[in-house]
């Protein structure tokens, strides 16, 4: 087998090995990346920055641990910005596993900032149904979630003194690994005129650009790069920014493999 034929048929175990080595190596070799923000991410950041104290942001954790590397850093950066600006955070989950992830993000950031559960933030947990839950919040959020994740009744919570439904929620952010942004836009956005933004995995982002153009979504945080942009904007670079080095290395490796495959393809084709 000639070298060109080999280029055409590189065994996948070598590809796996290169990817594995690059991921590991890039964690140990410090490489500072300049992360520039994009318009859809900046729009989400700016809309929270412009909010008055005691405004309210509803964050829906519509993902599970498979999307955690992309969406959890995003959630922490958004929650950090809200709590730092004294914007109240109400978290819910349309996916059952989202409850634990929300609890982790909220307690970590709240501890760091000194925000109080029930006053500055609350994790309402998961409720069965997708659009049914979104519609029910439009009527009364404390009736939809009568207790929070810690089992405390929501009716007399300080955070809900002035928050009843979408009329009192300044922004809804769905952090999604599935099609829940469609549900939020269709039911909360269209029916109740709620302002919607989304944070999604990189593979899903392309699906939501039509909503950006029509302004049915005010912004979009796109994958790990979007999370890194958000962390940079908030001024606390963490996991997403660190993840940019391995992601860069892997993307370059994939591009090189594609180029090698094509070189092999053209040279063997000409030979034939």
């Amino acid at each position, binding site marked *: 087998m000639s070298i060109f034929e080999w280029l055409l048929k590189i065994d996948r175990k070598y590809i796996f090995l290169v990817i594995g080595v690059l991921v590991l190596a890039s964690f140990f070799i410090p490489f500072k990346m300049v992360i520039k923000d994009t318009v859809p991410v900046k729009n989400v950041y700016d809309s929270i920055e412009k909010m008055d104290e005691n405004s309210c942001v509803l964050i829906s954790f519509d993902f599970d641990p498979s999307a*955690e590397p992309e969406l959890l850093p995003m959630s922490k950066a958004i929650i950090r910005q809200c709590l730092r600006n004294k914007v109240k955070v109400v978290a819910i989950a349309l996916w059952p596993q989202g409850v634990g992830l929300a609890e982790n993000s909220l307690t970590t950031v709240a501890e760091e900032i000194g925000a109080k559960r029930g006053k500055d933030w609350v994790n309402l947990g998961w409720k069965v149904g997708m659009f049914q839950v979104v519609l029910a919040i439009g*009527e009364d959020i404390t009736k939809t979630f009568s207790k929070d994740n810690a089992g405390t009744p929501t009716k007399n919570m300080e955070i809900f003194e002035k928050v009843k439904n979408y009329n009192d929620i300044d922004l809804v952010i769905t952090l999604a690994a599935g099609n829940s942004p469609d549900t939020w836009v269709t039911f909360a956005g269209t029916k109740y005129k709620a302002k919607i933004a989304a944070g999604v995995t990189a593979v899903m982002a392309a699906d939501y650009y039509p909503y950006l153009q029509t302004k049915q979504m005010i912004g979009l945080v796109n994958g790990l790069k979007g999370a890194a942009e958000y962390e940079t904007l908030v001024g606390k670079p963490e996991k997403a920014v660190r993840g940019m080095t391995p992601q860069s290395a892997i993307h370059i490796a994939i591009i090189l493999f594609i180029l090698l495959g094509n070189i092999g393809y053209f040279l063997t084709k000409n030979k034939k």
Partner: protein
Amino acid sequence: MKRTGPLVVCFIFAIIMMVQAFVPHPFSEDFLQLSNNHLMVMSTFALAIGISTFVHLHLTKIRKNGEGWYFSIVALVGMVVTATVGIFGKTEAGTLYDKIFFYIQNPMQSAMFSLLAFFMASAAYRAFRARSFEATLLLLAAIIVMLGRVPIGDLMTGGATSKITEFLFSVPNMAAKRAIMLGVSLGVIATSLKIIFGIERSWLGGTD
């Protein structure tokens, strides 16, 4: 009657809900809330069906000594333990339930998904060949987007790749997505009308 009853209920409720969407009267809003509550109760039954199917499937596998039956024991024990801890204990941060989620389920699910990176690299190497004009276009777009979604791409091209990526997302991609969304929506409307008027009856079971 067995088939006519559900068809009549489906027709009546579909018409009522369609009208409800255009009537902002408090009575109409209350009706929406009521039907929504009923839907949430019904969704809970789906959960019950899911659990019973899960238990039945794994118990059958264990009973028949099927391939990997011991994994079924792990699955059942995992479900029973997690559910028991969640139902009888608390679920907030720092509790046993939270620890089970964070130290067992979370790493397992993340690890499974992370394998995708390896398979995607291998699949991209094999699939992206410039065999035709269209394939070349796809290949170029993929390379630009891959570079545009990492900071090193901007470093190499002076910021050009992220701008081209944003253009690809917001213009050609958006146009195609919108066309697909419109097509799908029209299809959903057509199918819904067929169900409402009893033309499409496969949801009742059977073939007619």
